């Protein structure tokens, strides 16, 4: 029987990797994927808890998280395309109109 903490540890590691990736990657799409990675790490935690506490809610949350992720991906990628059209580049550092 795998102890709960193993799952949690795994998800922690995954989450951290994703988080680091978010601001280490330069390509917008890669950043995006790192975000998805973080989401999934959280999902793992939720499911682990839900199955260890015999409580369905966690899985429902995961379900909703997935839908939200799908929506997010749709909009996000549309944004990516728009950005690419405007400034022939996907480098996050090039999107710096805010800089002083």
């Amino acid at each position, binding site marked *: *029987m795998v102890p709960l903490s193993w799952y949690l540890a795994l998800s922690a590691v995954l989450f951290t990797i994703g988080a680091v990736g978010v601001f*280490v990657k330069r390509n917008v799409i890669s950043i995006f994927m790192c975000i998805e990675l973080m989401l999934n790490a959280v999902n793992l935690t939720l499911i682990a808890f839900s*199955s260890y506490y015999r409580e369905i809610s966690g899985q429902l949350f995961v379900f909703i998280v997935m839908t939200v992720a799908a929506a997010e991906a749709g909009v996000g990628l549309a944004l990516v395309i*728009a950005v690419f059209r405007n400034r022939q580049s996907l480098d996050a550092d090039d999107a710096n109109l805010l800089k002083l």
Partner: protein
Amino acid sequence: MEQAFFLVLAVLSVGAALSVVIQRSPLYSAFSLIGLFACLAALYVSLQAQFLGAIQIIVYAGAIMVLFIFVIMLLNIRKDAQVLDKHRYLWVLGVPFGLVLAIEVLYTLSKVAKVSIDKPAIGDSQSIGYGLYTTYLMPFELTSILILLAIVGSVILARRDDEKEEN
């Protein structure tokens, strides 16, 4: 047995995650991510969440990632632009941060009580559907609205400007 299974999957998924971050070509990261999702799906199944395992594959691997890859191919991004990264220091910043965060989170999780509830495991489609349409009906409907908005939004965002000039 189970533990070995878990360990294998864990190692695989961590590797995949790392490669997501490390790969220079978005497509490679994407495929590593798909691998990760597969591993996670397997883990879900091992947690008696077969339904979510399947959904995980269908939604993430089958739809979202296809979308990613479609965009990548559409924009035909072979590799990260070869220009010098002006912000290498972010790596320096990121890795220690990451380690700290990992340690912290692990510590927190180690505080989680060891649970053992002897009830039959759940996660079959029926119970999920039940929960979804009784307790969590409201969030469910809200997500549907959210998706609708997302559809509209992405259509608006992704359309070309010249189309706008046309109509």
